[in-house]
């Protein structure tokens, strides 16, 4: 048994290079003075610095901010995470509660943080396979055989992803449209569009490709996306406060389609 030595060593002793507040004086953020050295940073630049410890240039920051603007900020309360924020408004809860719950909900499988993380992870594995001389079609076939899907390809509700064109326009303007992993994302789509698969790429694969080209790891991409839906969720939350309480898509009793056990008595 290892015993409690780790805890004994850590008691009242948190050693870190992430940062600290010196009350009344200054703040250190990853070894830099927040007020003097980072005070002019954009919020996205600071966020990325906090996640990675690396400083990104202006074009990269515009790319990462653009991904949030174009791809993840739909103010539509029908989308599941947005609906949580809107329901909080409709039920007259607080904005922070609604948005924080919606943020947690965004860690979904069919949309949100997970597909992008899974997608970049596949791209790194595919790229490794290519480096070993394996054909991309074989890599795709093998992944589908093993997992039945490839995240970043296919989409609930609709086939076409309307976000890809504007995001690629932005990437073009910034000079990021022809990176190695972006090309790989499109090559995978070409393979998946042939044969019986007929799977279109969704924006998660494009985001994954762009992020990989800028040097983000799987974990860093996942962390960068934690707050990405907040502009849309907050908008939905605010919208609901302006409507009558409880009026967001109300459901009458008969909208529950009961498929369970027949009537019975607790005493029997």
């Amino acid at each position: 048994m290892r015993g409690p030595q780790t805890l004994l060593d850590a008691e009242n002793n948190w050693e870190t290079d992430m940062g600290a507040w010196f009350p009344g004086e200054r703040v250190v953020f990853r070894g830099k003075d927040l007020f003097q050295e980072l005070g002019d940073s954009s919020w996205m630049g600071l966020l990325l610095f906090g996640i990675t410890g690396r400083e990104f240039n202006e074009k990269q920051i515009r790319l990462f901010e653009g991904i949030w603007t174009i791809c993840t900020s739909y103010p539509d309360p029908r989308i599941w995470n947005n609906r949580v924020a809107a329901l909080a408004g409709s039920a007259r809860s607080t904005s922070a509660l609604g948005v924080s719950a919606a943020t947690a909900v965004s860690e979904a499988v069919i949309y949100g943080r997970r597909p992008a993380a899974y997608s970049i992870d596949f791209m790194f594995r595919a790229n490794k396979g290519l480096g070993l001389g394996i054909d991309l079609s074989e890599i795709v076939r093998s992944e589908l055989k093993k997992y039945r899907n490839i995240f970043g390809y296919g989409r609930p509700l609709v086939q076409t992803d309307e976000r890809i064109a504007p995001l690629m326009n932005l990437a073009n303007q910034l000079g990021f449209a022809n990176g190695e992993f972006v090309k790989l994302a499109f090559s995978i789509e070409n393979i998946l569009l042939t044969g019986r698969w007929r799977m279109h790429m969704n924006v998660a694969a494009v985001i994954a490709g762009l992020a990989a080209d800028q040097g983000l790891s799987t974990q860093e991409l996942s962390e960068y996306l934690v707050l990405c839906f907040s502009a849309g969720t907050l908008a939905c939350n605010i919208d609901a406060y302006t409507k009558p309480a409880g009026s967001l898509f109300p459901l009458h009793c008969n909208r529950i389609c009961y498929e369970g056990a027949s009537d019975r008595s607790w005493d029997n």
Partner: protein
Amino acid sequence: MSEEVIHSRIWEEVPEPDNPFAAARCNVSGYDVYGDLLGKASWIEYLYLLFKLEKPAPEQAHLLETLAVAIANQGPRDHSIRAANCAGVGGSTSASCLIAALAVGAGQLGGAREVLLAMEYWQHCGQDLKLWQQQIKNPPKEERADVWPEMEHPPGFDPHGASCATPIKQTLQALVAYHPGGALEWLEQNRNSLEGFADCPLTMTGVGAAAMIDLEMTAEQGEMLYLLLRLPGAAAHALEQRQYGWRKYPFFGDGLVLTNDPGPFSETTTENS
């Protein structure tokens, strides 16, 4: 487009004649909640019914209730409860206290995700000691990345433990009484061997996982119940700390050691660097 509905095997409603949005009768799995269950079903029986859609046998209800008491409050040093207290002392909303407790109590160290993973071990190994040895020695490793971090210790065991803590043994003993011959009893009999394989002692998540297996819960049900049943302590402690206030709660004022402090900023330092 046909009217969209919510499908449910749990809940049925009959509307009041004057308002389609107000239920006159609510059934859970066929039982009339307000016309029949009230005053008859205990809270724990009702909880079991919601998850399993059947009334529990008395020993199942006792088992779930005993587990619920055991994990309802693990004290103010527990990670999940500390999270609730951080919300409480700062004057945050009550819901945020519980959200904080859930977020932290969801984790893989002492939390609900650990229960889910431990239940998956049970589903794979059953009561076969050799399989447990293999599984602990060579834990399953997902090739694909996930939002959950990699597991750092055998689920259900305390990586910082020196020996099995007394409340864990007491809880296990109390639960076995309600389900002899199941996972709990096998765990009690084989605890020393399993702790040897894991090189760390059994902890509450391991006991909870075995109890959920004996209750025939799925791993996801076990995870959800473990989240839910730990909230009472978080709620009570957060309210208590809200009253005491932040001045009486640890801030660890001298506990943070910054290993790369550049010191107070000066233009000359930057120019020379």
